[in-house]
């Protein structure tokens, strides 16, 4: 499924790389927006990696034991004490949103406006649900006394790490929800028909999958570890 745009070399494998980088018009044979989004996601990867790495460093270096995430994030529903249940639900919500997003991109290829819009808005709805649940998590922990400078459950650095990492991630999700709604609206009004391509749907998809990807790492390192 490689695209052939004018002005760059053909060839696959290592020869393809040499051809791409030495081409005279463009390096990658993909639409500009897509390449730019990938580069942005690369930079964002580094940012989140800095956060997670510093979290690791902080957690390794505390003299007081780190709060047990299983316990901190447990909920009692209907008398049953369920560890990490809200986080599990949040993970499923985000994966569902990735699924609807992938289908939206598919529908975008087929120029099926109605389905693309519906699926993008479904993705946005899942995203909004996720942010709502994260906000609930925040209020619950703040009520229990978790602050960036201390908490009653263990190492004082826990709060700072938690709020910083989940805060930035939640911000990215929220931005993504707005992004999705704006692009879905543009699809609906035929903006991309006039433009000639539905690339933006795929680019939005890339961003959204990145958001899910970051959650996979946060989930594994912060909540499970």
């Amino acid at each position: 499924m490689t695209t052939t745009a004018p002005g760059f070399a053909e060839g696959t494998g290592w020869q393809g790389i040499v051809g791409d980088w030495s081409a005279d018009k463009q390096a990658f044979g993909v639409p500009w927006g897509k390449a730019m989004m990938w580069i942005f996601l690369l930079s964002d990867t580094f940012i989140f990696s800095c956060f997670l790495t510093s979290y690791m460093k902080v957690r390794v270096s505390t003299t007081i034991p780190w709060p047990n995430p299983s316990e901190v994030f447990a909920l009692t529903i209907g008398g049953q004490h369920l560890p990490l249940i809200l986080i599990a639900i949040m993970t499923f919500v985000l994966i569902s949103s990735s699924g609807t997003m992938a289908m939206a991109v598919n529908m975008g290829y087929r120029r099926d406006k109605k389905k693309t819009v519906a699926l993008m808005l479904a993705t946005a709805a899942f995203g909004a649900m996720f942010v709502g649940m994260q906000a609930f998590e925040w209020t619950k922990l703040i009520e229990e006394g978790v602050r960036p400078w201390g908490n009653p459950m263990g190492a004082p650095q826990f709060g700072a790490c938690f709020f910083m990492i989940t805060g930035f991630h939640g911000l990215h999700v929220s931005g993504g929800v707005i992004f999705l709604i704006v692009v879905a609206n543009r699809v609906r009004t035929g903006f991309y028909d006039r433009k000639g391509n539905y690339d933006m749907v795929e680019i939005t998809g890339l961003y959204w999958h990145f958001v899910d990807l970051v959650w996979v790492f946060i989930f594994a390192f912060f909540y499970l570890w």
Partner: protein
Amino acid sequence: MYLWIWLLLFVLSTFSYLVDFFQFEGYLRWFLILLFMFLKAGFIIAIFMHMAWERLALRTAILVPPLALLVLIGLMWIEGDYTEVTRFLFFGLPSSG
């Protein structure tokens, strides 16, 4: 095809959750957490984000730089360990074992 990967992601997430539910400990816990995490990440990047079908130039430009992060992680691990030991020594705290 997306649906299969989607289903697979749900399954892997359930496994991840079960690691905590069944209270695995020690190296097994870490190994399973990392395994499921990388599997999920791999599938999301390769299939959902279409990377498997992109040009090799783009793939290497995006996927190779994050490998440098392994160096950072390694260095910070050593740093964190050193900080902890120094804190115990300097503050004269009892060792948590």
